[in-house]
């Protein structure tokens, strides 16, 4: 019951039609400040996180998480695949090792079209062509394309181009590979088809490894890499193959994104700090406006503890409402932007052509509750000064 009274007091002090316009103004502005701070922090995290996530999914969708290669770019073959497979069998985190043959080629589709492409041969796939290159070539599933290996291109003294292999193939499907670069250049074909095109019967350009669900690719990559190192060094040979997690190819990109995110978070956190300072002056002002009321309540028997609580509750109410609005508003903004005003990007620069906002629930909750917590902490100072002021003085004058 008493708790209810304290809430009622705090609520009417910060928000009541009977309040002076100044108090209402100050309350609205301080709540708006907090709401803006929280919203901008959450939205930033949503889009920075969305970008990183889209790129990561794009990259991991098309590439096995473990990349095994020969430093220096020498080709590998099926024997190397067998070696790695037998080593990987000993590592429980790794499920499958797969051979990859990937080389550039020239492709043509509908009459008169021609384009450069990356042809990637892997086992157990059908022929999938990236959606953008498919559009460029004017082809769709079921159509024919012709792939010419540039390995066979030679410029003779007469300036003529000799192309020694031209394979005609049927497209099984058109795929969205997630990343612009893949969509506009990648054609995935069965490994044997690729070997035929490139006249490389047992060649591979790299190996890809998959991890069991829930396993950390970075850890698995380290295990495999050190196992490979042991194998070669132990046998007295120089190190031949290495393994790295695929995403570390783009380590610098992710580092840069992370740094940018930290920098922007700091800037927006400063906005929130300004909003909190504003709240603290609002609370001081509301406390001054209600000094007499508190004096009256003291005269009627409100304890100093209760006076303290009322002051904290004012901060909690303003901060909580502001932060709550910020939370809801950021969710709505992200939803509306994704749904109705998608942010278009230049795919050739940014890899993806729509910037997706992913509502960061955990981060949003942390930001919201941390803000509310700081609001309460900030209201401790006006609360202490409310305690120290004498009710008698507050009651003397109108």
């Amino acid at each position, binding site marked *: 019951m008493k708790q209810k009274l304290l809430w009622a007091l705090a609520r009417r002090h910060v928000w009541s039609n009977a309040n002076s316009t100044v108090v209402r103004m100050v309350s609205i502005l301080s709540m708006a400040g907090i709401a803006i701070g929280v919203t901008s922090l959450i939205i930033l995290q949503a889009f920075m996180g969305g970008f990183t996530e889209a790129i990561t999914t794009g990259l991991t969708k098309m590439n096995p998480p473990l990349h095994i290669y020969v430093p220096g770019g020498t080709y590998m073959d099926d024997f190397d695949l067998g070696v790695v497979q037998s080593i990987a069998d000993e590592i429980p985190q790794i499920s499958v090792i797969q051979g990859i043959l990937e080389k550039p080629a020239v492709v043509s589709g509908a009459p008169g079209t021609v384009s450069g492409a990356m042809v990637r041969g892997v086992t157990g796939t059908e022929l999938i062509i990236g959606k953008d290159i498919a559009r460029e070539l004017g082809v769709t599933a079921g159509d024919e394309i012709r792939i010419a290996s540039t390995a066979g291109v030679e410029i003779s003294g007469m300036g003529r181009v000799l192309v020694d292999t031209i394979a005609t193939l049927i497209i099984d499907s058109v795929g969205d590979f997630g990343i612009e670069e893949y969509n506009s250049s990648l054609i995935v074909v069965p490994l044997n088809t690729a070997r035929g095109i490139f006249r490389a019967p047992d060649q591979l350009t790299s190996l890809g490894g998959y991890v069991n669900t829930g396993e950390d690719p970075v850890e698995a990559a380290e295990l495999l890499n050190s196992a490979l190192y042991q194998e070669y060094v132990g046998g007295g040979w120089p190190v031949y193959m290495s393994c790295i997690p695929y995403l570390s190819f783009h380590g610098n990109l992710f580092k840069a994104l992370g740094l940018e995110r930290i920098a922007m978070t700091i800037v927006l956190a400063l906005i929130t700090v300004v909003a909190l300072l504003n709240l603290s002056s609002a609370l001081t002002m509301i406390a001054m406006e209600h000094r007499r009321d508190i004096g009256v*309540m003291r*005269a009627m028997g409100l304890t100093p503890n209760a006076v303290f609580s009322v002051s904290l509750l004012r901060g909690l109410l303003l901060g909580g409402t502001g932060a709550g609005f910020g939370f809801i508003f950021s969710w709505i903004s992200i939803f509306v932007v994704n749904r109705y005003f998608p942010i278009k990007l230049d795919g050739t620069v940014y890899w993806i052509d729509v910037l997706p906002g992913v509502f960061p629930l955990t981060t949003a909750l942390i930001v919201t509750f941390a803000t509310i917590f700081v609001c309460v902490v900030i209201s401790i100072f006006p609360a202490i000064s409310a305690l120290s002021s*004498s009710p008698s003085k507050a009651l003397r004058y109108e």
Partner: protein
Amino acid sequence: MVLSANDIHCSYGSSDASIKVLKGASISIKTGEVVAVMGPSGSGKSTLLHALGLLERPCKGKVLICGEDGWGLSSRRRAELRNRKIGFVFQFHHLLEEFTLKENVMMPCLIAGETSEEATQKAESLLERVGIIHRSSHFPSTVSGGERQRAAIARAIIMKPEIVLADEPTGNLDSKTSLEVEKLIMELAEEGNRSFLLATHSHDLAGAVHRKVFLNSGIIKKS
């Protein structure tokens, strides 16, 4: 004795430049007694009432409320004593602007931890008694000065306190309203066998009381 205070000293300001307002005031009030403290403006009436009402600690002196040493208690117990035994009426109505008249009157009950049903019921019957039941859901800023002071009086007596301290309760009202409010105070004192200590410089209000004392040069003199 409902209230007795002995040798109260109060002063304002720092020790070297202090103004001594009360220099040994003593007063005692019996149950049901209505006493007026008279004195010119600035003589220290408010200071005395605040000391007696446990709002401002006197430099020296004891205040006994129903035999309990008010200033010797913990602040928590003192708050409880103010809530249950003492009612206040101020020169300015000092109603809470954000609450309706009824909510204002209920406030001491809510502070005491009563349910809002109980408090509502008590408040309504008191508003009825002081004649402003038709204004119960109005906010203080929308009613007249007399109505506000009636609400303030209802608020002061809702906990059935042993003593009501009223600091110039009619000081801010026109003479006709003053008379009505004075009459109400006397009636309420009679009905509840309740003690009142009125600070006033108006001889009209003082006319009807049981006993008058004068505050002069910081001490209380009998009439």
